[in-house]
Each structure stands twice: as C-alpha cells, then as structure tokens.
C-alpha cells in the first residue's frame, strides 16, 4: 500500500480547565484503537489558570503493520497553514487561531463553538468592550475549507456533559478525522467516570457535524428599541411605572421639541431622556428588588429546582448621599455640601445584608419603595430635573446648528451610570464635558466640536477609574487639557 505522505495534524485551542487535556487523551486512545501512531503535546504551565492554551496532536493514518517498522517523525508544534483540524472551544480562540494562520482554506476543517467567554479586557470597559462575534464567524466561513460552527456549550449543557465531548463528536462527525466512530466512542468509554454523559455529548456533536441533525440556531439577542415610536411607548410605560402618569406626561412634554427633528436624534434623545428620568434612586431600587417577578428571575438564574426554597440576601450600603437624596431639597443640599467639604461622602455608609426573601427584610425594603409619592419633593429629584433640563436645552440648541452635533451632546448622557462613587465620577465627567465642550466650545465648527465631544466621551468611558484615581473629585480629567479652554 502507498503510505500517506504526512500525518493528520490537529490543533486544539481551549481555555484552562475546559478538559482540553482529556480530549487529547481520547484522541490518542482512539488512534491506538485504530492502530495508528500518534503524538500529543501541550503547554499546561500557568496558562491552565483560566488563560488561553493549546494542545497539539499528530496522527499518522497508517497502521503499525502497514508501516512495517517505520516510525513517523512527529512535530511538537503546529505550523501555520498546515493544520488539518482546528478545534476551538470558544469563539475568540477560533479567531486567534485564524490570526495565527492555522486555518487554511485548502486544508483546514474549523470546528468551533460559537459561545463567548469574555476576556477581562472586554468585560471591564465602562461601556461595551465586547469583540464583535459575527466577524469571527464570517472569517471562519471564509478562511476554512469546512467550518462547523455552533454553540457547543449549550449542546453540552443540554446533554449534561462538558464541551470537550461535543467538540470531539463534531470532529469525528466532520469526516476530517481519520479515526472511526467506534474507536472514538471506545476511547470515551475507556475514560471511565462520566463516560455515559460524554457519549451523549459526543453523539449530539457528531450528528450535527455529519449533517444528520440541523445546526442549532443561537437564540436571537434581546431586541433593542431604536425606532422612535417604540422608544416613546417604552418610555411612557417606564415612567408611568416609575412615578405615575403625570411624570410620563412630563416626558412627552419634554420630547415635543424633538418630534419633527432628525430621526436618529429624536429617538436617541428620547431613549436617554427616559432612562435618565427613571434614574436609580433608593426608592426605585427598593421597588425593583421587591417585585414578585424579581424573585422568579432569581430562582431561574441560580437554577433552583421546584420545591427548593431560595433565600435572597441583598447588599445595600446606604450612606449620606442616599439619605440626602430623600430629604427635602434645602436639607439635602446642606447635608451634601457639608459632607463634601469634609470629604465625608462615603464615611457613614451602613453596610446591610438584608434577607429580602424573608418577611422582615422584605417589609423593610418594600417600605422604602412606598416612599414613591414623596419622591418629587426630594433633593435628588430636583437636582436631577435641573440637570436634565440643562442637558436637554443644550441638545435642543445644538439641534438648531447641526443634528449630528446634537446627537453627540445627547449621547453624553451615557456617562451618567452606576451608583455611589462611580455615579459621582460619571457625573463629574459629564459636567466637565458639558462645560468645556458644549457650553464653552473651543471651536465654532460643528463637525470639529462633535468630534471633540465624541472623543472625550469615549476617553471617559474607556478608563473610568484609572484617570481619576489619584485626582480629586471634579478636577478636570486629563483629556480636557488636550482640548483646551478659551
């Protein structure tokens, strides 16, 4: 017989703790069952602590007797362009593999799960730092000879097993693996514990890759409202729930000016306005935390089974700000300025673990929610409304000059996020930005001004704590210097 002139090469990209090593063992075992010489290597070092890591295998698809004493020389590292089967247990790892040249249109079968496990660097951004998944999927379809891409984590969960079994099944089902299905299954069985579940996962992966079952579609991401009508409807709904019909009317009233303006501008302004008007004060939080729907959601999220009671403990740490926000305006203002002057804003917070699912805890939190009718008389309410009016007026003014500029001004409301110190910092950034770039712009050119606002906003979102860490509250953040004030 003619011996094959090269081994089949398999590169597995996984994250530490995902069972990539077990999969490599299965492959070695299955190769042995088929009588093929094979070799695997890995670099487990510290990468196994949640980082990205790889396993590399070569299988020589000829039996020992066919080889008649000859020994193939196996490589210990994958070389770009020369990988037959590229396996990635997570989507970005598939992207990384492509970036490193391991996916070759003439040769490579790409098998990857489409789910995402976000890298720290993606998660920690103030706004949305996630890499666009669709780019990886598109690149995979273009760069691979055959691309088998679907959410294997979901399939693994459904089969009550781990992802490596599904990936292994998909490899076997893809037809790119020179090993028989029986040998693969035998290898799993030989692995002992959990073999039954692994075999289930293997079968489901195999069937999809082999085309016996359709590729499962990932559920569509939650819908974002972008059309003005829908946003207005949602806004009215939310604000009615937040403070009653009169408050929703105020929203409508405020939006009047924008009705016939640029579509994008009016919808974005409405969106930000609705969110801002429904600002998260302690009353709102208490209200949301004590709804029946919330307890149902918690049960679902933590995976409680029927009949298993779930105790929910909330972490609240109200302090001077929260107290002041509830006081009448003149009192609240005094308290805040007193605390600010002494740097005591965070000094008297009381950390509370409240068992909101318990009778007393529930009543305690619920009673805060009952303060709703008082809200319009509170310090925070008046402060927020003032700021909203100011911001809205600036958006409206800008709209007269240029819708694009107005849109940038409107978007600045994204800086107002979070609670406590995060919120304070966001607010300080917001005010500084409005002051320097909207109220006192260095340029009369609207395009330039819009660009400067966008840049500053993005900078503030990119590294919210870093820049402000050493500096005192309210000090202009560094990016303001570059813009300069006239």
């Amino acid at each position, binding site marked *: 017989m003619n011996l094959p*002139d090269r081994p089949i090469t398999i590169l597995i990209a996984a*994250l530490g*703790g995902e069972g990539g090593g077990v999969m490599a063992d299965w492959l070695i075992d299955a190769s042995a069952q088929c009588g093929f010489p094979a*070799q*695997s*290597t890995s670099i487990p*070092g*510290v990468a196994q602590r*949640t*980082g990205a890591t790889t396993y590399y295998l070569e299988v020589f698809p000829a039996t020992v007797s066919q080889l008649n004493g000859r*020994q193939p*020389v196996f490589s*210990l590292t*994958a070389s*770009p*362009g*020369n990988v037959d089967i590229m396996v990635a247990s997570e989507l*970005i790892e598939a992207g990384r593999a492509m970036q490193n*040249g391991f*996916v070759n249109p003439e040769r490579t079968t790409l098998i990857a799960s489409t789910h995402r496990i976000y*890298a*720290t*660097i*993606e*998660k*920690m951004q*103030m*706004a*949305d730092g996630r890499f666009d998944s669709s780019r990886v999927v598109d690149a995979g379809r273009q*760069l691979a000879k055959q691309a088998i891409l679907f959410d294997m984590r979901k399939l693994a969960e459904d089969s009550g097993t781990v992802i490596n079994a599904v990936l292994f099944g998909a490899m076997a089902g893809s037809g790119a693996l020179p090993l028989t299905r029986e040998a693969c299954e035998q290898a799993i069985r030989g692995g002992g514990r959990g073999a039954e579940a692994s075999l289930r996962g293997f079968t489901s992966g195999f069937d999809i890759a082999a085309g016996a079952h359709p590729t499962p579609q990932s559920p569509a*991401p*939650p819908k974002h*409202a972008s059309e003005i009508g829908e*946003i207005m409807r*949602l806004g009215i709904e939310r604000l009615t729930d937040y403070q009653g019909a009169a408050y929703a009317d105020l929203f409508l009233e405020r939006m009047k000016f924008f009705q016939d303006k640029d579509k994008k501008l009016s919808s974005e302004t409405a969106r930000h306005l609705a*969110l801002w008007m429904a600002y998260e004060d*302690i009353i709102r939080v208490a209200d*949301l*935390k004590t709804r*029946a729907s919330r307890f149902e959601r918690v049960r679902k*999220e*933590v*995976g*409680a089974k029927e*009949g*298993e*009671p*779930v105790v929910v*403990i909330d972490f609240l740490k109200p302090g001077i700000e929260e107290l002041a926000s509830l006081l009448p305006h003149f009192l609240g203002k005094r308290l805040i300025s007193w605390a600010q002057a002494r740097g005591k804003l*965070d000094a008297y917070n009381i950390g509370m673990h409240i068992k909101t699912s*318990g009778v007393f805890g529930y009543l305690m939190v619920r009673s805060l*929610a009952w303060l709703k009718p008082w809200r319009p008389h509170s310090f925070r309410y008046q402060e927020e409304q003032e700021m909203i009016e100011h911001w809205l007026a600036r958006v409206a003014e800008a709209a007269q000059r240029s819708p694009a500029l107005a849109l940038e001004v409107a978007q600045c409301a*994204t800086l107002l996020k979070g*609670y406590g*110190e*995060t919120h304070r910092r966001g607010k300080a950034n917001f005010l500084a930005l409005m002051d320097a770039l909207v109220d006192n712009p260095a340029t009369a050119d609207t395009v330039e001004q819009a660009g400067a606002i966008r840049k500053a906003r993005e900078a503030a979102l990119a590294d*919210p*704590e870093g820049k402000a*860490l*050493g500096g005192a509250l309210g000090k202009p953040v560094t990016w303001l210097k570059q813009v300069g004030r006239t």
Partner: protein
Amino acid sequence: MERSFKKEVELLKLGDGETFHGEGILAVTKALLQSGVAYVGGYQGAPVSHVMDVLNDARDILDDLGVHVETNANEAGAAAMLGASINYPIRGAVAFKSTVGTNVASDALSNLASAGVRGGALVVLGEDYGEGSSIIQERSHAFAMKSQMWLLDPRPNLPKIVEMVEKGFELSEASNTPVMLELRIRACHVHGTFTTKKNLGSKNSKKNPIAEPDFDFGRISLPPATYAQEKHKIEVRWPAAVAFIRKNKLNEVFAGAMSDTGIVCQGGMYNAVIRALQLLGLADAFGATRVPIYCMNVAYPMIPEETVAFCADKKRVLVVEEGQPAFIEDALQAALRRADANLTKVHGKDMLPLGGEYTGEVVLTGISRFLNRDVEINAVKKLKTRATELLGTVPARPPGFCVGCPERPVFAAMKVAEKATGAFHISADIGCHTFATLPPFNIGHTVLGYGLGLASNSAVDTMFGKRTLTIMGDGGFWHNGLTSGIANSVFNKDDGILVIMKNGYSSATGTQELPSSPQHSESKSDDMAIERALAGVGVGWVKTVDNYRVGDVAKVLKDAMSTEYKGLKVIIAEGECQLERQRKLRPVVAKQLSEGKRTIKVKYGVDEDTCTGDHSCIRLSGCPTLTIKDNPDPLRRDPVATVIDGCVGCGLCGENAHAAVLCPSFYRAEIIQNPGFFDKALNKLRNAFRGTTIHQRN
C-alpha cells in the same frame, strides 16, 4: 495536589520488553528507576511539576526499590542533595524548572561540579521557554558552560529521551561530572511510547546502607583542593566526557544526498527541522532527509572532531539553536577555525531569530531562507494578512485568578485602601498573585524572583515618604522568603509592610504541599505554622485577616500604613486555594445530596434591572464567572453584569459591593436543597405575602 497520578504510576512498574504509553515526564521518571537511582528530589515548577507529583504518588513503588524521595525546600536544596553522589557510588537525580530554578541552585551546582561525583548525578531541567512561559527567557546552556556540567538535549521522542537519561548516568560516572538533561515544555508533555526495562535497585540505598563514610579533602571546596579540581575538570573529566560521547555515539548524523549543505541542530530541535524539510519537499514523514543533519543530543560540550568532520565537505551549514546568545554557533565557528576548516560558511542567527521559541513556523522560515525557498512562507504570510483584514486584533486572554480565588479579594482590598491612602509602591513576588499585575488590577511594580518580594522592597521602601507594600506567597515564604526577606527585614529594622498570601499550597505549580498546608500526606510532618516562624524571628506586628472580608482587609492595610509601630508589619491573608477547596468539597456535597441531607448551595447574582452596565464591579474583581451579557432592557445598550454558572459563592461580589460602595445590584442566593420541615414552613409563610396588597405583582 491538582492532579493525581495514582493510575499512571503503575507504569513505573513495567518490566523488560513491555510497552509504556504516556507522558514524557513520566517516561523520564521511569528511566530514572531503570538507571538504578538511590535518591530523587526536586522543586515543583512547570513543566517538571509532574515529576514531583509522580514521585509523591509513587512512594510505595519507590520504597520497594529503596529509593529515597525528598521534596526539597527549593532548587538550591535539591542541587545540594546531589552531594550524596560526591563521595559514594550512588546515583541520584533532581528536577526543577529552568532557568529560574537553575539560578537558585547554582551555588550548590558550582560546588557539586567542582568537587566532581563518583555516583551518577543527573539534573532534569524543565525548560519553560516560549509560548505560555511564565518566566524570564534565558538559556540553561550558560550554566552548563560556566560550571562545566554536561548538557543533554535529546531528540523529543520517548525512546531517545529514556536512552539519554540512562546514558546520562553513565556519562556522569565516566567523567565524574554531574549532567543536566534539558527538556522543553512540549517534550515534557509529549505523549508517546517506548519499550521498558526492569527497574534496578541501587547497590547502596535505604535498603543497603553505606558501611563507612569516605573522607577525601580533595572533594572539599577549599583551596588548594579547588585548584586541583579545576585542573581535573579540564585535564581529566572533559576528555573523558568527549571520549564517552564519541564512543557511544550520543550525537547522531543523519546522512542526506545534498552533500554540500548541512544542518546542525540541538536534539530538541530535530523534529522541527525534519518537519520543515518535509514541508519543503526535502524529507519524508519518517525522517529520511536530503539535507544531512548533525543532531546534538549533547548540547554541551561540543565535540569538535565530530562537528569538523560533519562540515568537512560542506559549503554551507545552518545551526538551528534555540535561545541566545548563540553558544553553539559560536563554538562551531571557533572549532572550524581552529581546525583550519575555512571553506564552510556557518549560518545560524542570521537566518533565524536571535531570541524566542523556535516553533515549527520559525524553523521553517529560517530553513527556507537558508535553502532559498521562500514560497512556502509567502502562502502562510498571506493567510495571516487575510485573517487580520477580516478580524482586526482579537482580545488577548492571559491567565488569571481562578473562580473564587482567595487572592483576588486581597487585591480588591488594596484598591479600596488606595482610595484612602493614595497610591503606594508594591513589590510583587512570584506565584498566582503575580496575576494581579494584569488587568483589571494592575497591582505590583516589580517582580524580582521567587520569595524575594520583601528583599526587593528593602531599598525602595526608604525612598518614599510613606510606607510601601510587599506581597509574598506562602510558597515563596518557605522557599527562602522567611530568611532572605523577613528575618533580614527584622534584623535591619526595616519599616515595611508584608502581605503573606496564605492559601495553603504551592498553587501556581499545581497545588503541591507546603510545610504550612492545612493537611499533609503521610510522608510529611504537619504543624509547621507561618505564624510561629514569624514569632520565632521576632516579628512584632502580625495581623491575620480573612481574605474574603474585603472591608476588614482594607482596614488592616490602612492600619499598617498608619500605625506608630516601627518595624516589619506582617499581614497574613488567609484563604484556602479555591481549587483545592472545591476538590475537597465536591465529593462531600455530592454525598450529602445523594443521602437526601439538607444542603445549602450559595450563588451570587446581579439584578439586571438595577445594573446600569458600568462594570465597576468587574474592574474590582475579574472573576471568570462574573461577566457580562446583552442588556435585556430594550432602552439600554451596554451589556449588564451577570454571574454565570460555576460561581462558587466565595462572597467577594457582595463584599466588593459593600467595601467599595459599588451598587445595590448584587444579591446572594442560598438555595436550600433537600429542605427540611422548618425550611418548608418558613417558605410557606413568606409566600403568604404573595399577591397581597403589599406585594408588588409585576
């Protein structure tokens, strides 16, 4: 221990003519036994951690053979242990990570190499170089050269590795010189087969005691003996080694038809060279090559007779030598010059990169350049460019703290404390805690070596108007930190602050036991407390904190910063390594559940409707199970935080929310599995509120 080798150690019992299937590092261990070692030891560290793990799991087998196993305190201790082979004809081996371990060991190695050995002494070096490495990138080769120890670098397949271990002992004895065997990380973890031999007992061992001590001043490192030893190295041991290597053909020549060209490579590079030639159509899958290869399974010393002969009819040779400086290339140049063989042009680092791992791709690129065949490479380049066009740069994913890691909260506390005290200088150390230098924490200004955190802080501490902070793990503490750091700091009346991460294990290397581990295997003494050691060296200010109480930890940090107390202040940050904790907990919980016993499962969560998507909690945690998801609110755009399956309920999320006054979105859920009568009754009472006027319905 992170991984158990109870099953694999059975392979160590294989006898003559049987087949071993398994990992490289296990094959090395088997080879040691086939060589009749009397003692083994070492210090853990990737990629040779498994040697120590295997040895510890194989105690019964080793006891039967009379082999002594020592878990050494550090690499210096391991190397010093080889002193047993100086006077007595017994074989011994130790393993550690290189070059960091070799650095630590080099005092003992110098002395050992100078005195010379009667029994074979082998140092197995796990090379952590290149992709995924966690250490500085240097060569072990330099150590071999400076101490004149022989350096083996076998072709990375199991039969060759095993053969070189066996030959290594013979070489060591034939030349009275300790021998090093370097194994790259992938070779350590390579899975393959070889035909075994039966294990040999040592002539002298635990079972057959040495009768009389042997005194010989000539083996002491004191003048004038040291002068004689140096002479002996040059005049006797070196020639003996060269003769042995030549006679036993430890280096290999693979002939090829292209007789005017050749490749000289380290043994460890051989497979990459063959693969490159194969891709260029110059070799087949079985290693039959058209380009002649001289494969140096002995990387040091070079055998000039062999290299000169190999180059004799060649116009050009390429040296494939991983790492820098290019010792082999330079030695080859010198050898040819000395032999007046000036017709061969030697290439090496002009075709291949000076530094960095020689992966298949790198070697292929270099060899194609050498042979003027760049076509193969262009295709690969195009592939990468195309991918970059389509993808841009995908986010990096460095290693980090595990789910629920007890070290994470300490760094969160440092961030909280810094808000009050202002930023302070932090001298970091080696261990899992070094991950704090990465996002989201970016904590730690310098790293100077294992256990050296406090020592590295001694000058910088005096250069600030306020106190600085040092981090040390319990691994580093026992490795040398107690003496080089703590005792020294007390002695010099330094005013620093030291945080000792007491997670109970040498976690970064695979959760091996430490003297202060919470429980010990039979072969280890227990009850060695860090606290008593500190008291013993006179530390007067010691506070122990529970890591997960972020607020308390931050407070103690602030106290340490401001206290009147002058002198070393030690904060013991206690929290068991979550990997080990879960490993112990899992079977207990499973058993409880299956027996129908009441069990509380804790998981943290984030309320998606109060989360505003600012992610400040993530910037203070980085826990893999605290992540983000699409915002379910149609009006919002930015993703919200969420806790996914796998959260071990360590509590940090709630603590951070409090300590940093983050937000009210976090909750702790206690799921009562197998609820009792009382639970059910209470639940009923609570549910009675459902649908009443005070209960918000939607």
